[in-house]
């Protein structure tokens, strides 16, 4: 499939994109005073964050601020030790749940560096993932024919070449193809909470636009999205409801899209920010 190149265009923030947000609903995710160590080094130091259904939160911050740590802790990576704090996901204690249970209950992490798995067919992998979730929900597993029908429909949202379905998972994929494959997985698993860990990194403008359109098409009143990013560039396409600045293991500022633009203009200016916070 050929991807049509479109010129770079800044999309205006339109009100309709905020229509999903309903502030009276119960939180999807509540993080309270989260402390996390990696190999005995403190990375997160008392982080608080509340996300309601339908909201898109961007988390920005300099390298080493703990952005990816937060993403990995939410997905249940065992090498990250939570030393203190609570995470509630849809009223459940997230930290008590195994990685696979979190996934089946609707947590999805789009990896910064998706893993290559030679010899395992991408389609087989996607089907196994979806059926793990379906059987957890008490639904019948999809057979090959039904799955093919579903994936043909989903693959359009990320404009991915169908040939990539028949290759090994991420093996030899370009950076953009790997990221699109992540969004395809998200489209298939239809999570309640999607955490996109630097999904924009390493993408050219065209790929960024395609991936962003894929993400936008998955915005819904029942789905919350955390966009972890280093640059505000992706926020021109996926417009967040909130922007948080993470530094030295905690959120030091929160605001709306304007905050991201301010960061782009002035940089993180960490010393000033921490003084004013």
């Amino acid at each position: 499939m050929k991807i049509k190149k479109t010129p770079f265009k800044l999309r205006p923030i339109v009100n309709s994109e905020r229509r999903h947000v309903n502030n009276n609903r119960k939180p999807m995710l509540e993080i309270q005073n989260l402390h996390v160590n990696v190999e005995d080094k403190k990375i997160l130091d008392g982080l608080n964050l509340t996300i309601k259904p339908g909201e898109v939160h961007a988390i920005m911050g300099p390298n080493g601020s703990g952005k990816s740590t937060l993403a990995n802790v939410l997905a249940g990576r065992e090498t990250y030790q939570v030393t203190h704090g609570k995470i509630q996901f849809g009223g459940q204690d997230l930290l008590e749940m195994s990685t696979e249970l979190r996934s089946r209950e609707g947590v999805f992490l789009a990896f910064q560096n998706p893993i290559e798995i030679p010899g395992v067919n991408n389609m087989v992998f996607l089907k196994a993932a979806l059926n793990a979730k379906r059987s957890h929900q008490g639904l019948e597993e999809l057979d090959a024919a039904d799955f093919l029908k579903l994936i043909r429909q989903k693959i359009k949202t990320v404009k991915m070449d169908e040939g990539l379905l028949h290759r090994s998972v991420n093996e030899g994929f370009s950076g953009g193809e790997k990221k699109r494959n992540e969004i395809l997985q998200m489209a298939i698993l239809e999570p309640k909470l999607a955490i996109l860990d630097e999904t924009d990194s390493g993408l050219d403008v065209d790929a960024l636009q395609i991936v962003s359109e894929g993400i936008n098409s998955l915005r819904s009143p029942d789905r919350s999205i955390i966009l972890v990013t280093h640059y505000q560039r992706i926020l021109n396409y996926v417009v967040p409801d909130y922007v948080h600045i993470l530094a030295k293991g905690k959120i030091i500022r929160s605001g709306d899209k304007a905050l991201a633009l301010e960061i782009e203009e002035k940089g993180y200016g960490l010393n000033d920010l921490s003084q004013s916070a």
Partner: protein
Amino acid sequence: MMTTPVEQYVSEFANVKANLPGPALPWLDIIRKQAIRSIDRNGFPHRRHEEWKYTDISSIADTFFQPVQGTAPTLLWKELNALGLDFTDSYPMIFLDGRYTPLFSDSLKPPDGISIESLQHVLTVNPESVKKHLTRFSETGSNVFTDLNTAFMNDGSFIYLSKNAKMTQPIQLVFVSTSQKEPVVSQPRNLVILAEGAKASVVQRFISLNQNSDYLTNVVTEIFLDQHAQLEHLVIQEENFSTSHINTIRVQQNKQSHFASQVFTFGGGLTRNNLDIELNAEEAECSLDGLFMANGDQHIDNHTRVDHKKPSCTSRELYKGVLDSNGRGVFNGKVYVHPDAQQTKAFQKNTNLLLSKNAEMDTKPQLEIYADDVSCSHGATVGQLDEKAVFYLRSRGLDETKARDLLIYSFVEEMIQKVRFEQLRDQLRNTLNVKLSATDERKEIN
């Protein structure tokens, strides 16, 4: 004084030699006697012997295994079907405890220029056709197991392709052990000769009919490839975990011949595979691929040796091992580049996956180079499953067992994809799944 197993083999030989095939052939008589004398003189190797450093064969050396003689009873179709073998698009030969059973003899006939016979039949009817090559590549005294096979040689296969003959279907030699409890040794002997420009595929499969029988398989295969001949050779071993298995393959290659070997070891309590290749003329090529999976208390030892004797030959080798539970693996791969063998290309690699802290792998890639214009490399790795990859799969809802199985599958699939025949690839994947799920179930119990 107690008689040792070696003494028992010597006296057994004296008792049965008149009943072995070709008793009236003086050349064969000489070879057999040399072999039994060599066993008497050398006995079984000890672990002090460099070639057996990591493999303790005392369980074999301390037991007298009764050599299986005579002709095989006919296997019934339903018994064969119970083994779940698929002979679609292949030319099968079935052996019971090393003896040919003519199950398909009426329905199958090889194309012109190709003969596929039982060795016993050839030694009885037309011994001249094998005289030139039989035992020529396995000089007595070099390996006690080969000598044991030679002395009691009773049956096996003789595959001959005349000039430019091509066999498109794989020839499947299926060795079924029917042994119940008694310690017996079945010793098939195979001779494969491809004349100039001939092309064939041969598959050796080893299966146990009974799951708890304690027997020894000691198979020897000699292969000769003349100029431009091409042979694919597969070994698939799925015997039960109480058996011992010694598989020796010796290959001689002439100019521009091509030999591709694939050795899959899933079964057997104690397995030793010996694969020796001599590249005897210019531009001969060989590729050696192997996959072994040991769990339970399995011990799997792969010894390979490639002799580059003439210029411009190529050898490429990749062995992969998966070791779980108390499984032990040994890889010893030697590439020997003789002084005359300029412009040799030799690449060797052994990669292993350790899945349990009690599993063990000893790997020893060896290059000996006596020529100066060569391109050679070798390497070995022993590693564990990538935890990042396990996390990735779990984050997509797969449970830990499934995630690990998928990654093991990912590690071994490369070797299965090298198999050209779809029906064999499917059977290998089935075997793999059974083996993985058996391991998983045991883990859940423990």
